[in-house]
């Protein structure tokens, strides 16, 4: 140590800037996407969902059969090259019916989620933005609606309105948005009180700017996660109603009534329940793992 040459003790030239040591910064979305991609389960869920959607759109289009035409000479066929999933007791092709049913189920899920999104975000947003008395009244209403059992209300509504896709969607929409509204309001209130919003307000930022720059980005992640849970809930909802006989009526197909139908014939024709069940369970599973993955990826608390 003593034998160091003198010139080592010359001041070092400033090669690195002390401030530049920090890691390269990623935007919130890049960071979230990077983390989602590294989650194998969630990615598998995403891929399955994309495949299912493609099949739901195109399989019925390219099938030789349609979902409602009955071929009475082709009754109760087992799965084969002609009918991948077999046929039912009216000779309808189950491959077509299952994907048609998937299409209907996904459609119901997506529309329900959209309604939840619009109504819930508006309601929660208004409630949180105005606060005070408005918030108070709006929240009392929410509390009452929240404690009405959704399925029961849906059942009596559909019994009296008559079954069908629109009845199901209306029944779901009547109470489904409440969860989203609560979530959005809660998160907004939390963000509203945080220092950076106070700071922006103190600096004289306009309300529009605060909403666009601060509030929306902080709520959007939560909303996306919530949607990935609403879609399967709505799909489940439709299937449940179809199963107890108030959902979608044949000849229209939905995963719920296919499963219900299949249950009656499963003793001798197990293929009738197995295929719609597999598709249905895969959809629920995929949405759930994707939702979990998104929640982990979008949760800013987890950000290192």
């Amino acid at each position, binding site marked *: 140590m003593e034998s160091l040459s003198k010139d080592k003790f010359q001041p070092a030239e400033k090669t690195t800037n002390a401030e530049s040591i920090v890691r390269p910064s990623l935007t919130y979305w890049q960071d979230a996407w990077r983390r989602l991609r590294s989650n194998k389960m969630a990615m598998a869920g995403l891929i399955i969902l994309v495949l299912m959607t493609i099949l739901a759109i195109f399989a019925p289009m390219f099938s030789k059969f349609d979902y409602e035409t009955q071929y009475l000479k082709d009754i109760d066929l087992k799965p084969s090259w002609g009918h991948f999933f077999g046929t039912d007791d009216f000779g309808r092709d189950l491959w077509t019916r299952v994907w048609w049913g998937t299409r209907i189920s996904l459609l119901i899920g997506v529309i329900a989620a959209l309604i939840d999104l619009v109504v819930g975000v508006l309601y929660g947003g208004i409630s949180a933005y105005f606060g005070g008395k408005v918030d108070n009244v709006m929240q009392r209403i929410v509390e*009452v609606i929240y404690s009405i059992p959704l399925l029961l209300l849906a059942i009596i509504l559909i*019994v009296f309105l008559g079954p069908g896709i629109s009845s199901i969607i209306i029944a779901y929409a009547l109470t489904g948005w409440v969860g989203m509204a609560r979530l959005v309001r809660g998160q907004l209130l939390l963000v509203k009180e945080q220092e950076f919003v106070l700071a922006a307000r103190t600096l004289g930022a306009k309300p529009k700017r605060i909403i666009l720059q601060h509030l929306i980005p902080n709520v959007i992640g939560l909303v996306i996660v919530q949607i990935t849970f609403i879609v399967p809930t709505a799909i489940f909802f439709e299937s449940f109603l179809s199963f107890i006989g108030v959902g979608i009526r044949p000849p229209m197909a939905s995963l719920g009534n296919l499963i219900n139908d299949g249950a009656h014939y499963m*003793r001798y024709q197990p293929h009738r329940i197995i295929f719609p069940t597999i598709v249905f369970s895969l959809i629920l599973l995929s949405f*759930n793992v994707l939702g979990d993955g998104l929640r982990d990826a979008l949760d800013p608390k987890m950000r290192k």
Partner: protein
Amino acid sequence: MLNYVLRRLIYMIITLWVIITATFFLMKLLPGNPFGEVAAKLPPENLAILKAQYGLDKPEWQQYLQYLGNVAQGDLGVSYQFPTRSVVSVIKQSFPASLELGVESLVIAIIIGLTLGIVAALRHNKWQDYSAMIIALIGISIPSFVLAPLLSLYIGNKWGILPPGLWEGPENRILPAFALALGTIATLARMMRASMLEVASLDYIKTAKSKGLSTRKIVTGHMLRNAILPVVTILGPIAVGVITGTLVVENVFVIPGLGYQFVSSITTLDYTMITGLTIFYAAILIVVMFLTDIAYGLIDPRIRMSGRR
């Protein structure tokens, strides 16, 4: 705490009132007359007598008040299809089976679900964790209306291990209770696991460790109680799920319970039975939610003391 109970009580009553009012107006929307097919053939003067007897000749607001009064006194009306059967008598007859099924399945779900969740959290990222979470994912993606027929078919009919249906001895209880419990097991296991992991990372667990407590003591004395708190809040919705699940399970396993009655009254479009049973179900669900709220207040000292929420 008293304030809190009172407030929940008031909400409970308002919610019930909203539901009863909704059913009343839905009934009014129905075409035809309220006495069903039979009455349609009666001569008009007899019909008028019948209407007067039921107060249907009065203005609607009086009818509405009378309806509210009847419900408040526990009179839910008579069947639309079989006017000799009152809704209440049907409930008395078939509710016990549903209650038993619901409670059994809830107990199974709580025991298995919490155990899975706790084991998964304590063995975080080990094989026990992964297997518990795979079970949970299966439970979430296979709802009761899929699981129940499959269990009945394979374990009941094809392999003959347990009876495929009916409601006789204890062996008849196992399949339906399990079919009903699986989804709840999954929800509880996931929630309990997440909650345990959250609590394990909190500062006071480090404090407990710094006192020299053993891992066992830390888990039983500090983690479980705190981890179970958030789980209690979803017991209400979980009970709701179990109760609605009985509609499916009772039909698949042909159990003479209220769920079976409810679905058959839907199939036969027995309107008064449907509304009567709906009000009854709603009342049960709301009371269950209320009770879990109170239970939560009792085990969390922060709420017990201040009554805030």
